[in-house]
C-alpha cells in the first residue's frame, strides 16, 4: 500500500509539472526523465512489484486516477490551456474506450472513429443552435444519433470480415468528411459554431467565482468529462468481466468456433459496434460544446488513424492502457511545440515501431484472472 501511494504521489507531481511546464527544455527534460524512469523501473523489477501490489488492491488505480484528476483541477483552476488539455485527454479516452469495445473485444476495426466523433459534434451543434432541448439531453441525443447512423453500417460490417470490413469503415469515414465539405447547411468547409453548454440556466462558459477565487470555465466541462469517463470506464470494465465480455472475446478470436458453441456472432457484433459509436458520439458532443466550434477538418482520416493508434499504443483490449496512451498522444505534441508540425509523422512512425517490435502495446491485456491471486490460494 505504501508503495502504491508513493508511486501515485510521484506520478501526480510529475503530471502537474508536465502540464505546468512552459519552457521547451523543461518539457524535454521531463519526457526524458519519464523514459529513463520506465526503463530503470523495468530493469530493477519495480514494475513487477507494482503490478503485484495493484492486483492485491484492484480498486486503487481507479480511485487514485480520479483523485489525481481532481487534484490537478484544483492546481490548475485558473489556467485555461492546461485544463483544456486535461479535458481533451479525458474526452479522447472516452472515444477510445468506445473504439476499444469494437476493436479490442469483438475485433471490428473502426477506421471511422473520427467520423462518429464528428457526428456527435455536429448533432450537438445543430440541436443546441436550433432547438431548445436541454443541453445535457443534447449530449445523449447526439450519442444516440451517432449510434443510429452507425447502424446503417451494421449490415455491411456484419456480412464482411477482415479487409472487407475495414474498407466499409474507411469508405464511411471518407464519405462523411466529403459530405460535410460540400454540405452548405452544415457550414461546408467553414464549419459551425456551437453555443456553450447551459445547465439549468447556468451558462458554463461564463466561468465562475468561488470565495473570491476565479475558476476557469473549463472546470465544469472537465467535471462532466470526468463523470462520463468514469461511467464509460465502468461499463467497459464490467463488460469485459461479465459473460458478455467472454462471448465477445470468443467472437474475436474465432468466429467459427464461437458459432459452433452457440454464441450469436451477429448479436455481439451489433452490440459492440453500436455501443462504441454511442460512446464516440457522446464524447464528440461534449468536445464540440467545449471548443464551441466544429469543422470537417477536425474529422479527417488521419484523426481516425490517431484514435486507432491510441488503442494500439495502450494495448489492444486493455481499458487501462488507453488513458496513458491518450495522455501521451494529446499532451506531448502540445507541449513540445516543435513536434506539433510533425505530430502525424511521429505517430505514424511510433505506431509502425510498436506493431513491429511490441505488438501488444504499452500495457498489454492480460489473460483473464477470475480470482485475485491471494484468494485463489496460490502464490502467483
Amino acid at each position, binding site marked *: 500500500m505504501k508503495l502504491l501511494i508513493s508511486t501515485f504521489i510521484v506520478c501526480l507531481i510529475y503530471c502537474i509539472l508536465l502540464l505546468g511546464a512552459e519552457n521547451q527544455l523543461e518539457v524535454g527534460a521531463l519526457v526524458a526523465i519519464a523514459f529513463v524512469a520506465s526503463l530503470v523501473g523495468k530493469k530493477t523489477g519495480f514494475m513487477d512489484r507494482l503490478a503485484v501490489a495493484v492486483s492485491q488492491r484492484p480498486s486503487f488505480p481507479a480511485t487514485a486516477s480520479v483523485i489525481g484528476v481532481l487534484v490537478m483541477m484544483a492546481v490548475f483552476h485558473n489556467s485555461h490551456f492546461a485544463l483544456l488539455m486535461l479535458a481533451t485527454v479525458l474526452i479522447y479516452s472516452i472515444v477510445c474506450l468506445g473504439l476499444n469495445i469494437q476493436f479490442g473485444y469483438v475485433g471490428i476495426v473502426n477506421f471511422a472513429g473520427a467520423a462518429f466523433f464528428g457526428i456527435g459534434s455536429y448533432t450537438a451543434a445543430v440541436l443546441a443552435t436550433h432547438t431548445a432541448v436541454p443541453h445535457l439531453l443534447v449530449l445523449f441525443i447526439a450519442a444516440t444519433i451517432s449510434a443510429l447512423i452507425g447502424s446503417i453500417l451494421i449490415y455491411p460490417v456484419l456480412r464482411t470480415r477482415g479487409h472487407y470490413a475495414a*474498407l466499409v469503415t474507411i469508405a464511411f469515414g471518407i464519405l462523411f468528411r466529403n459530405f460535410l465539405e460540400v454540405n452548405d447547411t452544415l457550414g461546408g468547409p467553414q464549419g459551425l459554431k456551437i453555443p456553450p453548454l447551459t445547465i439549468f440556466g447556468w451558462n458554463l462558459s461564463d466561468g465562475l467565482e468561488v470565495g473570491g477565487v476565479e475558476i476557469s470555465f473549463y472546470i465544469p466541462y472537465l467535471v462532466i468529462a470526468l463523470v462520463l469517463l468514469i461511467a464509460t470506464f465502468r461499463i467497459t470494465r464490467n463488460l469485459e468481466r461479465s459473460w458478455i465480455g467472454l462471448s465477445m472475446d470468443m467472437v474475436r478470436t474465432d468466429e467459427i468456433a464461437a458459432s459452433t458453441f452457440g454464441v450469436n456472432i451477429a448479436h455481439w457484433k451489433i452490440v459492440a459496434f453500436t455501443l462504441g459509436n454511442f460512446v464516440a458520439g457522446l464524447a464528440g458532443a461534449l468536445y464540440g460544446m467545449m471548443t464551441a466550434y466544429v469543422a470537417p477538418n477536425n474529422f479527417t482520416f488521419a484523426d481516425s488513424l490517431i484514435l486507432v493508434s491510441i488503442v494500439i499504443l495502450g494495448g489492444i483490449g486493455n481499458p487501462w492502457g488507453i488513458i496513458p496512451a491518450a495522455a501521451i498522444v494529446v499532451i506531448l505534441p502540445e507541449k513540445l511545440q516543435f513536434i506539433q508540425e510533425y505530430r502525424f509523422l511521429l505517430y505514424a512512425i511510433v505506431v509502425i515501431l510498436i*506493431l513491429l517490435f511490441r505488438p501488444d502495446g504499452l500495457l498489454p491485456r492480460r489473460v483473464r484472472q477470475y480470482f485475485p491471486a491471494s484468494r485463489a490460494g496460490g502464490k502467483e
Partner: protein
Amino acid sequence: MLGVIYAIVAVGFTLYFGVLDVIKFSHGDILMVGAFAGLTTYIGIAGTFDSPWLQLLVLVLVSLSIAAFLGAIIARYLILPLQKAPPINTLLVTLMLGLALRELVRLFYPNGSNPKPFPRLLPGDGIAIGEFILRADSLILLATGVITIVAVQRLITKSKIGLAIRAVAQDSETARIMGINFRQIVLITFMLGSALAALAGLMNGLYYNEVNFSMGLLLGVIGFSAAVVGGLGNFYGAIVGGFLFAALQTVGAVLLPAILPSVPSAYKDVFAFAVIIIIMGLKPTGLISEKSSERV
C-alpha cells in the same frame, strides 16, 4: 480515363493480395511519391533536353524505378517481417506508413503542402469528331493505361515470372518446395505493383496538370474499393471495379443534380462511396469473389 487510372491502382492491390494475402495500404501514397519524383525529375532535366518526349521518357523511367525501389524496401522491412502477425497488423502498419509518406512530402518537399503544377508534356490539341473534341493527351493516356493493363496481364499469365508469382499466390509452401525463391518473388511483385502505382500517379499528374501531397489517400482508397468490390486477388475484378467506380462518380456527377435539383454534383464521391458500401453489404466478398473455402 479515370477508370483506367483506378484500374491500374486496383491491379496493384490485387497483386499484393494475391501473392501474400496482405493489403498494402500505402499503395496510394507510393503513387503520390511517384508523381512527386516525376515532378522533381522534370525540374532537374528541364534545361537539358528539349524534346518533351525525351523528357517524358526520363520522367517515367526515374519515377517508376524510385517507386519500385521503395516498394521493395517496404516489402523487405515491413511486410515480410509481419507475415506471421494477424492481417490487421499489416493493414495498420501500411496505413501508418502511408500517413508517414504523406507527411514527409508535406513537410520536407519544398512548399509541399500546396498543390504543385505538373508540366504539360503531352500535346494538347484535339481531334474533332463532329461536335465532340477528343484531346490527344487523353487519348495517349488512355492508350498507355490499356496497354499497361494488358501487358501486366500478359506478364502474369504468360511469362515465367508470372508463373512463379501465380505459384506463390496459389500455395507459397509448395512453391518454395518446388524451388521458387519466395522472397525474390515477393520483392518482384511489390516492385511491379509500386511501379504501376507510380505510373498511375504520373498519368494522374499529366491529366490534371497538378499534383498534391494528399492525392494518394483518395486514389488509394478508391483503388482499394475498386479491388475489394471486384473481389480481392482477382485480376479482372480489379479492372471491373476500377471502371465501376469511375462510372459511379460520373453518374453521380451527372445524374444527381438531374434527379434531385437541390443536390449539387459535388456529392459525386459521397454517392460513389455510398454505393460501394451498399455493394459490400450485398456481395460481401466482391463481385467476382475469391475461390477459397473456410478452413475450420
